[in-house]
């Protein structure tokens, strides 16, 4: 019966269209539920690392410690949030820009180097710390003294795809590079003797050295310059000015040096002069 065909086709088309619409709408509605706010009301959400000893570490009892954490706490206090109003959000390196852009955090202090590529996506307050790439070796190692001593087939470890790993590949082609997903894995490899040194920013290395005193040492000074800033939403000038003021105040009233000595002092590196904030 020919007359039955068009209506059959229409209903079939409609069913397919409905199924497609549902398939698109369902994840969207779920995503809408999942979107967090950047800490509206009386709490503030701050992003930091949870696995970086000496900088941002979540302790087994749930408390947070580290230099980044102390800076973030000070800034939050200046913004009018007491310590118990802070909600910490883990911010792994690859997700930091996304967390800020999606308003899931108010700001991020997580070993966040200020770079031009990142400035395209987020704004930075600070810098609150200037560090640079360095080397972590076993305490009894004597043949690695700095970047120059690396050339003869030394084995280095760093985090996959990170800037320090790329720098080693580009500038020291004689070095063998092991890449792992985390610095903890690199430190484990160093402990096992599988690599001769771990390389990344000096303060990160100092954090690991401070965690197990006497096992490792940081050597060779720094051979790059990284400026750690506080990442925040692009265009939020008001917040940027407030955070910059807070950092300046922290550097002036001694809290900055106290935080550095407390968290990274045991590694044997002395507190540098605090950097001037870029207004």
């Amino acid at each position, binding site marked *: 019966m020919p007359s039955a065909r068009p209506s059959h086709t229409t209903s079939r088309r409609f069913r397919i269209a409905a199924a497609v619409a549902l398939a698109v709408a369902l994840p969207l509605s779920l995503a809408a539920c999942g979107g967090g706010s950047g800490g509206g009301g009386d709490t503030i959400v701050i992003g930091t690392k949870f696995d970086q000893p000496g900088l941002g570490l979540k302790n087994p009892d749930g408390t947070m410690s580290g230099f980044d954490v102390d800076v973030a706490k000070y800034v939050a206090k200046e913004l009018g949030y007491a310590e118990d109003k802070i909600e910490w959000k883990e911010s792994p*390196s*690859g997700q930091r820009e996304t967390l800020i852009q999606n308003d899931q955090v108010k700001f991020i202090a997580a070993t966040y180097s200020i770079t031009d590529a990142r400035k395209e996506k987020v704004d930075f307050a600070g810098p609150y710390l200037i560090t640079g790439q360095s080397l972590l070796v076993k305490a009894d190692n004597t043949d690695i003294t700095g970047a120059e001593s690396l050339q003869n087939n030394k084995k280095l470890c760093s985090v996959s*795809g990170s800037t320090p790993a790329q720098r080693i590949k580009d500038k020291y082609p004689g070095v063998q590079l092991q890449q792992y997903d985390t610095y903890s894995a690199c430190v484990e490899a160093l402990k096992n003797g599988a690599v001769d040194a771990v390389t990344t920013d000096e303060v990160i290395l100092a954090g690991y050295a401070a965690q197990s005193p006497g096992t490792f040492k940081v050597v060779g000074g720094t051979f790059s310059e990284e400026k750690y800033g506080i990442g925040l939403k692009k265009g939020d000038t008001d917040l940027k000015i407030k955070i910059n003021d807070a950092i300046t105040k922290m550097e002036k009233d001694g809290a900055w040096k106290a935080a550095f000595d407390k968290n990274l002092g045991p590694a044997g590196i002395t507190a540098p002069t605090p950097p001037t904030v870029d207004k």
Partner: protein
Amino acid sequence: MLHFGDNAYDLVGAFWTTIQLTFLSAIGALILGTLLAAMRLSPVPMLTWIGTTYVNVVRNTPLTLILLFCSFGLAQTLQITLVDRNSPTSIEDSNFRLAVLGLSVYTAAFVCETVRSGVNTVPLGQAEAARSLGMTFSQNLRIVLLPQAFRSVLIPLGSVLIALTKNTTIASAIGVAEAALLMKTMVENQADLLLISGIFAAGFVILTLPMGLLFGWLGKRWAVAR
């Protein structure tokens, strides 16, 4: 070379490593998986038990854990690096070979189960007939069961291969310079996250789509007519 501003990335090289990882692991997994299937089908209880335990343990262990075990357990603790430790590329070679080993071991469990399901499609009468003709277990397997089994499971084997291709990205966890590691590098340097993800997603589609089509076609062409 793929240019992004001032930076150039060896996209082809990274995907070539992915292809090598996939190809070598696929061969390893096919051999080991077929052996395991033979063990599980064998009349020797001990072999059956070993095969079953292997599949249940390995199939239920996360691949990341297996690869990290290869790197930390085998290479660092047990010193099984699969390379000459003094060679100038020992780390790179060791990681690659350990990744092939880990991926083969993991995928073999899935190949084993796929092949075993293929054997189940062969009517029981054939195995009985072969046995009554005086064929040994291994002759039965080689001449009667496996040739038919492989032909009937080509399409699911294709799915296992596609899964393996995508699983190679986990090798970046132990530092193998394949596509996922290059993607991490690019994400670190560039601002266009969506574009980068798009490029790599497209790369994997280009690799896996033809595999699916090829195995689909082979599966139809070599189907056992019964």
